[in-house]
């Protein structure tokens, strides 16, 4: 996951795009993961376990779970990984800037 997400973030640098994490690790482990994997994008910290309030409200039962939102905040894709995630993001970026 990390290398792919890093390259996506790099490719979208200076564009209206972000990965927004919701992290379920204990705080120390989360801090370590950010450092070791060069995670530059923001994350909510969901209280240190998979039973955290955000994951519970969003009925997440498997990790990772992915939602892709357009610039208006509408859910457009779910659980796209790898190339499918790139394609989803590219399609939404194109909607934003058709040129």
């Amino acid at each position: 996951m990390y290398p792919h997400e890093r390259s996506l973030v790099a490719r979208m640098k200076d564009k209206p795009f972000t990965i927004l994490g919701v992290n379920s690790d204990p705080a120390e482990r989360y801090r370590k993961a950010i450092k070791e994997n060069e995670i530059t994008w923001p994350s909510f910290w969901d209280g240190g376990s998979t039973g955290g309030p955000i994951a519970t409200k969003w009925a997440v039962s498997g990790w990772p779970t992915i939602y892709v939102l357009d610039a208006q905040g509408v859910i457009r894709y779910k659980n796209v990984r790898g190339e499918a995630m790139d394609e989803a993001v590219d399609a939404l970026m194109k909607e934003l800037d058709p040129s």
Partner: protein
Amino acid sequence: MKLELLFVTVAAAILVLPAKLCATDDPSSRIQAFIEAHEKKLSAFGEKMQSASREEQRAIYQNEYPDPTAAAFAITEIVKANPEDAASLDGIVWILRYSRGGNIDPEIIAVLEEHHLNKEKMVEVAASLMRVPTPEARALLKKASEKSEIKDVRGMAIYALAMGIERDTSKSEEYTALIERLINDHQDLEIRGRNIAKSAEGKLFAAKNLGIGKQAPEIVGKDVDGNEMKLSDYLGKVVVIDFWGDW
């Protein structure tokens, strides 16, 4: 030739005789005999698996797992001959447990529908039918959800109907309606100590708000250093929300 034929006939008669004698027993003990025989094979299998090495286990599992088909078939025959008997319901519960969501004889479904809708054990039957997609099974669950005199049977049938279409996006309205019925009418329903309506509330929120094309619900939270952040801060950007953990 004739002698051979005679031999075969005699042999067949000898084989059939004990079966005939058995037939005089009541359905309950006959069904129990099949179940016990299979459970015995299962526990012998389990012991063999436990004493085997890791490398041997896979082969043993693949080649020696006791196939329940023959026992299920025999029990099915007894059930068909004694549809009203309470023991038949026990037999069906057993068959469903071992069929792992596979094909269920439609006649079995008919027996349940006709004779056992108002029995407590139908709760377990409904739970087992969750993953059986045949029209007969779905129709039985629908009938149980409406007609059973036992409340938990109705509740479990509703839950099983909902779970069967959980991943079918074309049926999301039907799914939502079933989950709402469950939450409104069956708050106390439990399966193995887990409250069904409570877990259904999360599913309902997801069905209503987290579908493709829905406005994503606001998330208000904090980063690991305690700084407040919210999803709506990122309006105007394409956002990949990633529920993740480093494991």
